[in-house]
């Protein structure tokens, strides 16, 4: 069973994502800000992270940075999920090392498809 970590401070977004990925047979972890996300990642390494950018305290960029600086964690796939959708934002996100950048609001089927494709890629 693949493990997915959902990081977002919007409870309703988290709720929808949790439902859909449980249905797709993922083991779902939830974090409501960056600090929580890092705690979870350290304890149970997920296969993929859906990461919001604008969150209180520790933001998405910081989480990604943390992952990329760690030898054990830098292989985890990361998809940024953000309402920031200017070309410069997207470019920055990818440069920092995210595997995908999906802007909000997203089509949920499409998101599931992207997650599966990313996990099948070696």
């Amino acid at each position, binding site marked *: 069973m693949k493990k997915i970590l959902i990081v977002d401070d919007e409870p*309703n977004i988290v709720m*929808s994502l949790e439902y859909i990925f449980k249905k797709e047979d993922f083991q779902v972890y939830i974090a409501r800000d960056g600090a929580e996300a890092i705690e979870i990642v350290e304890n149970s390494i997920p296969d993929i992270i859906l990461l919001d950018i604008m969150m209180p305290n520790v933001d998405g960029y910081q989480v990604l940075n943390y992952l990329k600086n760690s030898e054990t964690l830098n292989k985890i796939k990361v998809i940024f999920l953000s309402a920031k959708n200017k070309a410069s934002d997207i470019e920055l996100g990818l440069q920092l090392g995210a595997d995908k950048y999906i802007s909000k*609001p997203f089509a949920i089927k499409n998101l599931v498809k992207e997650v599966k494709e990313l996990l099948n890629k070696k």
Partner: protein
Amino acid sequence: MSSFLVIAVILVYLAVIFYVAYWAEKNSKSRWVNNPYIYTLSLAVYCTAWTYYGSVGLAATSGLKFLTIYLGPIIIIPTWVILMRKIIRISKGNKISTLADFISLRYGNDRFLGALVTLVCVLAIVPYISLQLKAISETFNVITNHHISAISILDDTTFYIAILLAIFAAFFGTQHTDASERHKGIITAIALESVIKLVFFLVIGFYVTFYLFNGPTDIYNQASVLPNFKTQQTIDGLNGGFNWFLLSLLSMIAIMLLPRQFQVTVIENEREKYLQKVIWLFPLYLLLFNVFVIFIAWGGNIIFQNQQVDADLFTLLLPLNNNNEFLALLVFLGGFSAAISMVVISSLALATMLSNNLIIPYGFLKRFSKSESEENTESIKNIRRISIFLLIIIAYFFYKSFTLDRPLVSIGLISFVVIAQLAPSFFGGLFWRRGSSKAAKYGIIIGFLITVYTLLIPLIIDSQSIVTTFVDEGLFGISILKPYELFGLQLFEPVTHAFFWSLLFNAIIYSLVSVNKLGSYRERNFAEMFVDSTKYAALQEGAYVWKGEAYVRDIRKVLTRFLGENRTERALNLFYMKYDIDKKTQVADARLVNFSEKLLTGSIGSASARILIASVVKEEEISLAEVLNILDETQKAKESNIELKERDKQKDEFLDTVAHELKTPITSIRALSEILLADDEIDNPTKKKFLTSIVSESERVSRLINNILDLEKLATGKEKLDLNEHSIKNTILKSIDPFRQLAINKGIKMNLNEINDVEVVYDEDRIQQVIVNLLSNAFKFSNEESGEVKISTYVNQNKVEISVEDNGKGIENDELIAIFNKFYQSKNQTLLKPIGSGLGLAISKQIIESHNGKIWAENRSSQGARLTFTLPLNRP
């Protein structure tokens, strides 16, 4: 030495100088021509034959006083980075080509003032040019062993040299019709001459000090036993101190206002940053030049102690006396180059002044405005060429007909004093808005007359051996009118005495007249542009205020007459591009009028340019107040443009945030709806939960939109406040109502004990909105276990303060101000996201400010935060 040899050397030397000028003019883009060193060296045209021979003469007879002539410049030059930059900027910006143009433009293109300045300069400088010719002639006689000057002009070598110099100046000085263009050929040649005169002077200095004597100590030891030595080498008490001070001041003025210095420093400046090199390199040059002066002087005094020898000629006589003819020839060439560079630059500067400020505006304007452009440019150049010849020839005859047997220094200093009369109107005009043209004219005239009375008349009486009691007993025998001791002042030597009185009266009259009589609006316009040059430089043509009727067609006609079809077309195209004006525009505005005046200024001077343009436009009188107003508005328009850009940027950022805030609920709505749509197996409780979320997220979107619109209305003042008198207590109680149930549910205690009542004028709905906002914040952040919210009012003299307090964690100090920003979310929130839009406090702030109140946040000393707003009491 044989005359033929010397003449041959002079001719070869002149040929080299001509060639260098020619080469520089051809290669005017070359690095060798355009660099700060050439510029600095060209400033050394300050060191004339007077420096070469006269300094030594002065040092031999009066000791260290010669230093004052260089002390002044060395003191003032470091300020040039600011002062001279200002002058250069103004001159470049207005295409100024001479000192006379500068002063006349500052006082509103005053034609008479320009002519007056020109006359003063000509009167001061022509004798000075004569002096240089005299130096050439005398030293020529010394080196060729002629003891009598040639009687007939045609036998006089100096005459031919003068003609050659006139040809040189006329040829290289009039390459461009626009006199504000740089004369690279001449300047490069002058720079070369500056090197030559310094090197040769150092050589002779070295020769005297270390070859004729055994170094400085030896000379000092021998010189110190000569009679008069002690008194010569001191400042000479208080009187001497005053003389030193005034002479330094005089030379400070001279280094900036001598026409040749203005020419090389301002007009010929290629880049402002060259000044950074000048401020140390030029003082260094002057210091080097003066190192050996005192030793040569002492050496001369020792060697020629019992002979009747002109101390001015020590530099030349010392090597000759020692039979070193080669060295004497070098000295002669050094002095020769010092003299000719002064003659060339001075005559060029004066000729431009004469043509642009005297001859053209008073004699040729009518003719010019009738003929074709080709003829006009040729005529302008010819007027300048003829002026150069005339000046040099007049100077030659001046030297021939008056026995200029005064020492070199004193005649040079007289020129300085006459030129110094321009200082009050020049510097006053640069820093004082009130300085007016009438004041400038009176000041210069009075100052000049005093100089004539206290210096020139006695000098003429003295040199022509006229028998009169004028000098000794004063005019009509009145002793306080003694020219050398005016009003009984005995402190000074003649030159400093004349300088003191003339400049004092000049400055006083300039200030008094300026204060008592306002200048015209036009003057004040230029006064603003000169005094506040940095502010108005950015506005360029926009800094000029003009009202009236003018047509592009007429202005174009005038321009074509002086610049030709092509240049006019090019210039106008540039102008249209710069201001983004349609080429077909028929009516000219102030900017075009000013632009055209500037274009013509370079060719025919500012006064004529003004007259010509004025002849084709109908100008309306404007009051001074209007000029200042318009200037102010133009300036503000420029500033508000920058503000506008800043506001645009803020608006962009605001829109970004709004988009982000709207997308978040929409993301939830979409995701949840898509699941509901696609998933048929979904159980009922989950379905209900999803639908509830969709509804609440939709509400969030509407709330957000309402708040944004609200904020926008308040910020732009589109919504009028419904102002009426209300009881503040009632309003507070009304606002509390919806919270009572919530308080019971959450177990939060509400403290309402300190609410005092007062009648205040406000918009009740809006103030209620503020109180609700503050209360919901307080409820959100109050202590979770034993929450307490307190609302209180405090009435004082002129305002009522309403505070809402909670007993939660309080606000981080660095957030106390930021929480009122749009969409600011506290870092300290609980993990569950609050329902607010992030705009509540921003809206509250906007509401309170439109009531002329204040709102702020602070932490309570015990626990929690306090948010307070005030409303002004408008008690009768």
